[in-house]
């Protein structure tokens, strides 16, 4: 699979490394910060590109060749949304996933046909779940 990842923070770099382990995958990571890209290490088998995610020009280069997956994983919601929309609408990438930290924005753009995930909502659920046993303990203590 040809996989494009925008944003090489903690999340982006981990996913990039994981995907690149499979030799059948061609992984391209984009970040505007060169330091962020260096997180991938010298032995990273995929490609890296230093570029701004809201600049259309990079997509005309990268997405002119068919991509199977586009992941927008920067920590800026609006950048992820715009990049995902470009990949989906203009370049018809089949699988487009965007990280959106604002739950309401995540829901709004999900309705527009972009697959989104919201770290805030995921954390919220996780925390609530983690708090449940504590609550049982408290109940016992009383």
């Amino acid at each position, binding site marked *: 699979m040809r996989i494009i990842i925008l944003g090489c923070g903690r999340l982006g770099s981990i996913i990039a490394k994981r995907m690149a382990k499979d030799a059948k995958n061609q992984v391209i990571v984009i970040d505007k910060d060169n330091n962020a890209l260096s997180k991938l290490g010298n032995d990273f088998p995929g490609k890296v590109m230093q570029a701004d995610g*809201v*600049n*259309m020009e990079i997509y005309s280069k990268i997405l002119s060749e068919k991509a199977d997956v586009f992941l927008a994983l920067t920590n800026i*919601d*609006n950048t992820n949304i715009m990049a995902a929309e470009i990949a989906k609408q203009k370049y018809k990438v089949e699988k487009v996933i965007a990280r959106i930290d604002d739950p309401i924005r995540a829901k709004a753009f999900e309705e527009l046909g972009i697959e989104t995930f919201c770290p805030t909502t995921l954390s919220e659920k996780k925390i609530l779940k983690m708090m449940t046993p504590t609550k049982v303990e408290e109940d016992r203590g009383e």
Partner: protein
Amino acid sequence: MTQQNMDKKFVIVVGAGKTGYNLTKLLMEEGHEVLLVEKNKSRYFELNNELGENIFLGDASESDVLKNIGTNRANVLVAVTGDDDTNLVICQMAKIMYMVPRTIARISNPKNEDIFSSLGVDNVVNTTQIVNSLIEKEVDAGMIVPVMELKGGKVEIVETEITSNSPVVNKQIKDIKLPEDCLIVSIVRGDDVIFPHGNTTLQKDDTVMALVSKDKKAELRKIL
């Protein structure tokens, strides 16, 4: 009064840079209800004294902010922050979540224009492109100065001054062979504005305003 109320619009302007600030003041002068939204605190406090209730501190791409400022009853939303992605997302949210009838986004990167239009932003103001085309026009069109672009630049209102060595000086308009998609709409002579007819004679130092399609501009220039 009723007339005034009918024309009065609620306009949300996002981004209190120079464009946003001046646009807000202009719209207020015209009697519209305007709310300028700015996320930077120090910029907000800088303008707060002057604009009072017409400026709001907050990030308009946060859905809560859009809700609190009453986006649902806005007639127009204009996004003029410095970031193309922010402008796009705010316009889209205003459209999808609050059904704002008209959204306008400024973009800085001309390459983004296509995608904005196809993503449902009603009007895209391509600042870089406008300045660039003005420069090009200045160089290329010589005497003919563009005044206004209509239909996304396909039709223009241009003006030009008639010099003593112009081939049309002292000629009646009906005797001038104008290009097909071209109309002389007015002549400014001294302090007078003349609405021209076929038998109006063009004089030296007249300023001629014409409505012309873009591709006939060069032809018009040759004639005048």
